């Protein structure tokens, strides 16, 4: 289970719209517990794949080191990552799987169709390492504050 606040959920989807038609990427900081990965902070990252920005992403390791340092200062861990699939389904690809190495972490993918964020899915990388890793569909629980619930109800009324 991935538990994420409404504001963070919307922010990662908005990031995919901003970078369209290129892929966006970022890191989820929070707390991993027995009932799932709880997101407490979202960190946008740069995509270094300038050769193929529309269908590849890579976060520079030096940026990850800085993000991990920030997480430690906040008392959080890296609990997941997010990226967008411009004009492509919100499903993990063979590239996503081959390049996934953070077992226990959530990999969130948002499909962005013609500039608008559509479906957001999360996949938990399970296993003990490269030999037995697998992506498992992971339910997403969006945590809403009262003010956000009221805002959404007004928006849909």
């Amino acid at each position, binding site marked *: 289970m991935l538990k994420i606040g409404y504001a963070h959920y919307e922010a990662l989807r908005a990031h995919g719209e901003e970078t369209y038609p290129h*892929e966006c*990427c970022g*890191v989820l900081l929070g707390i*991993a517990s027995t009932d799932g990965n709880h997101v407490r902070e979202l960190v946008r990252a740069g995509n270094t*794949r300038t050769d*193929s920005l529309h*269908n*590849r*992403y*890579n*976060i520079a*390791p*030096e940026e*990850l*080191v800085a993000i*991990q*340092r920030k997480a*430690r200062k906040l008392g959080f*861990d*890296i*609990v997941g*990552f997010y*990226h967008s*699939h*411009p004009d*492509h*389904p919100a499903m*993990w*690809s063979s*590239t*996503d799987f081959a*390049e*996934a*190495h*953070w*077992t*226990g*972490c959530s*990999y969130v993918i948002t499909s962005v169709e013609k500039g608008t964020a559509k479906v957001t899915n999360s996949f938990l*990388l399970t296993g*003990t*390492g*490269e030999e037995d890793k697998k992506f498992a569909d992971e339910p997403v629980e969006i945590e809403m504050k009262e003010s956000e619930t009221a805002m959404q109800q007004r928006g849909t009324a």
Partner: protein
Amino acid sequence: MNIHIPTPLRAYTGGEPTVSVPGSTVGDALEQLTGAYPALRQHLYTGDGKLRSFVNIYLNDDDIRYLPAKDATPAKESDELTIIPSIAGGD
């Protein structure tokens, strides 16, 4: 010096996010780490002892692959090593 362990590898350090080891070089420190936590070795190195391609190790802000002396680089007690697997993908 302190070695920071990424979340997926903490299963092999007894859950410890940071491990403190002695060592006068980066290589010494990593040997101490894998000596204390042998199960970690296969997740960091290939069968022939090379660092796995997706594993990055930083001495403070420098990737050890690009340091002139690589893992023979001298390290001080106050230095920090960070193990950070790569993040990439795409559709």
